[in-house]
């Protein structure tokens, strides 16, 4: 969390100055950015040499994992900041046992979907500056970013659907997992909620 909090206010140079945090991480968890004694400029040059792993980004597996975890942490912070707003929406939604339960459920569902999608996009967008500095090429950085976004949003949403229920549904019992978790998909459910709300 300290890493995230220090990242949030920073500009691109501060992102590159991750080495200070990486040094700590490397000594404790051996995540290994190997940048103990390099300057901020050298940091970018050093990793530009590690190309041809994924879109020519120069990111190692560990670096990629750390970057994704970093984006998850930022997304978590954004979601935490939005939680009073979503709580306010929940307070104003009709109860699941009321006559307008479908509308309330649809509104809550769409609110959470938009909040999580927004947090995910912003968190991944945050990595773009880092990727630009590390790759030195805007096109490569964007390719990596969109591939991450595709993985996190498109597939992640469907996985979340398979692990439902999170909110619960009007008329259905609360379960840890549905009896048919693989049936249907996330995007159909969102479209149905949209229809319930606006049509």
């Amino acid at each position: 969390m300290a890493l995230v909090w220090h990242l949030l206010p920073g500009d691109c140079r501060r992102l590159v100055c991750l080495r200070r945090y990486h040094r700590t991480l490397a000594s404790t968890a051996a995540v290994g950015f190997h940048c103990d004694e390099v300057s901020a400029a050298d940091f970018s040059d050093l990793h530009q040499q590690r190309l041809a792993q994924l879109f020519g980004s120069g990111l190692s597996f560990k670096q990629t994992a750390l970057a994704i975890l970093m984006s998850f942490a930022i997304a978590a912070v954004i979601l935490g900041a939005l939680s009073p707003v979503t709580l306010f929406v929940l307070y104003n939604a009709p109860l699941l046992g009321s006559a307008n339960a479908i509308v309330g459920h649809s509104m809550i569902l769409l609110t959470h979907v938009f909040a999580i999608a927004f947090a995910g996009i912003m968190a991944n967008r945050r990595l773009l500056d880092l990727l630009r500095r590390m790759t030195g090429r805007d096109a490569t950085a964007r390719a990596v970013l969109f591939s991450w976004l595709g993985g996190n949003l498109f597939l992640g949403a469907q996985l979340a659907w398979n692990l439902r229920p999170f909110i619960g549904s009007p008329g259905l019992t609360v379960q840890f997992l549905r009896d048919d978790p693989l049936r249907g998909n996330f995007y159909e459910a969102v479209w149905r909620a949209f229809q319930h709300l606006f049509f």
Partner: protein
Amino acid sequence: MNPPPLPSKQPPLFANNFVFEPMPNPENPINVLENLLKHPGRVVHELHQKQAPVLAGWLLIFGLIGVAIYGTVVGAQSGGAQMWIAPAKLGLGTLLAVLICLPSLYIFTCLGGIDAQLRSVCGALFAAVCLSSILLIGFAPVAWIFSQSTDSIAFMGALHLLFWVIGIRFGLRLIDATGRFLGARSRGHLRIWSLIFILVCFQMTTTLRPIIAPSKMFLPTEKKFFLAHWFETVNAPNQEKK
């Protein structure tokens, strides 16, 4: 008679023509209000000095008082108990909206590349609320004239919303200028937050309803979203003034 001389040198202008310079006599609350209207950049500048918490506190208090004063005009439509219920609900709603949106504003300013402290963000938000409430007080006589000449709750609701939107537009402009002052790299984050804040305030009008029309209960039992409530109000027959 000679016209007054033109200034030989224009002061430096920043975003939205705000001039960020020290405010003379910042301890005087009246002076703070005057500068908020005439030179909002000075208030933004003072919000980053040592006495920022005191100044932010004054701004919040003035903002809530200003909204409550406008609330008496809103309650004048129905009269009776609504004369104190409407100010109380508007003040409470404003405070709740600020508390709900403050965490996201701080996070979004940080994401926008602003190295801001929480007290500075609080001060900017309180200043925005205060500025919008001052503008609402300016609109209050107009709103009162209309409230005495019509029975339509929907029309008065739309009019109050219009005045509020105009007021908050200037308040959000102040927050945007604060972001520029602190070196924001992009305006997208603050624009998204502005949209969230406006939606929360719109919903607050439904959560705390009725604000204009009289009611036997202080708060409603049925939960609705603001668009549904607004459409119902527009489609409902005119309510007679009590």
